């Protein structure tokens, strides 16, 4: 292509890049607003950020008419798959902004930069969901990582927050180094950075399978770091504990979902060829789906086993979110549209119940000033609504009917059983893990509903109406999607259609 064609392609692509441009503009507006506003008024920037997210949401919805296409000289893809994730990122970011507004942790601190970085993080997630070139994949992961580092250490005067940021940075630098090495090997094997071309080249010629396996494992370091999948999960508990709780809620949903988007797109485009009936075949030489199956089993088992001994609710939820990454990975290993569909569905359900659980943690933290399970004792008598809401979210996280978590897990298991006897062992592991998870979720339930509270504690706690509204806004869909999930299922089904070939 000659230069003027490349420029023309870039100019034409701009109109398909509207949601991202809106977010970019919003970042600049937020910075200027933060400069103009006085320090004590910086909380107003939250409303600006919220407005930007809503406008971007509308812009993403408008993109559904466009169908699938590749933009910016095959650097990014706009397709229903990316749009599904973009809607997920926007709604979760909006919820996190709402959580941040009420949070006591952030009260009194200048928050202009906080909301600017939140918007920037969302933009990074957008790019992750649509990247189709190894360079854009790497840059978008770095974009998300760097903004996450700053957000994790936002309570910089607090020791644990600084520790969280430092650990996050070191692990992040290490895993992106590994990933870059994997990218270089892949580039050496195929001579191209475009994942579609990599896919056709690998399918056409048999590359050295050992070199291919090494490059896959190294690439997995980058994706696994974002998913917090074993063995790249070490940062998660410390970062989740130290970061401001709204940010923890976002980390456990946004970057994780974006990691899944990248993982699914990368493996299914570059390392699989499409066969019939919505099933694909892995390319010859590397059985990456079994590799991912082992990672999934290890992730959920380790997450659940370590969660048992946790005394801090935030840490417990951190390990539980590691375990849930393992569950969601089960859909990816199947090499079928149905599996990806189950994963997409599960990620939305997981977003609702996990943000909900973190919201209850924030509420209790604001009321009691602690994140320890012991301080949840007798919560049902002191603050009934958060306790009941937490019950719903924990039931959903365990996967009990009639909550959304049950439907999400049901789809995953159904896809797994349909995937054939080769994956029965994974289904057994997942079922055992669900039982284990019931045990530690029940510990919180028992503390809240059955244990006597300490006598010196105040008998009842007043929950602010703002939190009541937010809690209801999360509890209702969690139960509703457990009873009537067809719209979400249809949307997820539609979104499995991603850009397969150029």
């Amino acid at each position: 292509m000659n230069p003027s064609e490349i420029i023309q392609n870039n100019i034409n692509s701009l109109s398909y890049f509207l949601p991202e441009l809106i977010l970019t503009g919003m970042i600049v507006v937020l910075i200027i607003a933060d400069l103009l506003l006085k320090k004590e008024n910086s909380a107003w920037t939250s409303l600006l950020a919220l407005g930007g997210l809503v406008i971007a949401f509308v812009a993403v919805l408008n993109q559904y008419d466009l169908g699938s296409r590749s933009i910016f000289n095959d650097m990014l893809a706009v397709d229903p798959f990316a749009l599904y994730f973009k809607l997920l990122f926007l709604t979760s970011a909006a919820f996190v902004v709402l959580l941040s507004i009420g949070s006591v942790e952030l009260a009194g601190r200048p928050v202009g930069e906080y909301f600017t970085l939140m918007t920037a993080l969302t933009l990074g997630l957008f790019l992750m969901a649509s990247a189709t070139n190894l360079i854009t994949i790497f840059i978008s992961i770095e974009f998300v990582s760097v903004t996450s580092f700053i957000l994790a250490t936002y309570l910089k005067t607090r020791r644990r927050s600084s520790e969280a940021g430092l650990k996050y940075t070191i692990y992040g630098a290490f895993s992106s180094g590994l990933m870059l090495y994997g990218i270089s090997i892949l580039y050496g094997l195929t001579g191209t950075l475009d994942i579609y071309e990599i896919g056709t080249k690998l399918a056409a010629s048999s590359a050295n399978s050992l070199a291919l396996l090494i490059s896959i494992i190294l690439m997995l370091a980058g994706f696994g770091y974002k998913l917090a999948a074993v063995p790249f999960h070490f940062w998660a508990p410390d970062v989740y504990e130290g970061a401001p709780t709204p940010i923890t809620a976002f980390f456990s949903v946004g970057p994780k979902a974006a990691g899944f988007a990248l993982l699914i797109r990368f493996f299914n485009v570059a390392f699989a060829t499409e066969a019939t009936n919505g099933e694909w075949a892995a390319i010859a030489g590397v059985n990456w789906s079994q590799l991912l199956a082992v990672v999934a089993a290890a992730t959920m088992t380790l997450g659940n086993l370590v969660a048992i001994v946790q005394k801090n609710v935030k840490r417990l939820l951190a390990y539980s979110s590691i375990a849930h990454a393992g569950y969601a990975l089960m859909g990816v290993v199947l090499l079928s549209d149905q599996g990806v569909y189950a994963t997409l569905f599960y990620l939305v359900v997981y977003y609702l119940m996990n943000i909900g659980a973190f919201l209850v943690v924030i509420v209790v933290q604001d009321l009691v000033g602690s994140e320890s399970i012991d301080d949840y004792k007798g919560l049902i008598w002191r603050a009934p609504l958060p306790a009941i809401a937490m019950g719903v979210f924990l039931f959903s996280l365990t996967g009990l009917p009639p909550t959304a978590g049950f439907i999400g897990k049901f789809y995953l298991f159904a896809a797994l059983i349909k995937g054939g006897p080769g994956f029965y062992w994974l289904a057994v592991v997942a079922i055992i893990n669900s039982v284990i998870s019931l045990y530690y979720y029940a510990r919180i339930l028992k503390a809240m509903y059955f244990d006597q509270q300490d006598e010196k504690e105040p008998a009842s706690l007043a929950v602010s109406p703002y939190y009541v509204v937010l809690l209801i806004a999360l509890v209702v869909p969690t139960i509703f999607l457990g009873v009537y999930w067809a719209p979400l299922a249809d949307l997820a089904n539609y979104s499995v259609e991603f850009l397969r070939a150029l």
Partner: protein
Amino acid sequence: MLFNFATALVFLIFGGLFVLLNLGISRILQARNPHPVKISTYECGELPEGESWIQFNIRFYVVALVFLIFEVEIIFLFPWALVFKDLGLFAFVEMMIFVFILLVGLAYVWAKGDLDWDKPQSVPAPELSQSYEQKEVTETVDS
């Protein structure tokens, strides 16, 4: 494929040998006549004072970061300026947006006081450390 890398390997080996060879020849031929002034570190004619491994003010870091950003801006501006006429209005607008975003960043750094140089004399030392300690205490109570 692998054969192409062999060229790089040969280049690497010969590059290393070339350096060693020249150092060796210079070692054999050179006249050695050490003198305290001759072996001292060259600092543009000044007498070197103390070690070069000292603690720098953390403020240099911020200045370096800001410098880096505008350095990158210049790198983008040079090629743009060369083909400016051929690219037309679109490229001009695009570059103005780019410069504007960076200027907002500069304004932000400036307004937030990150470009103000610390003047340690202006605040008496004991007062500074005391207020810092108080801040620490309130923070721990918070958390």
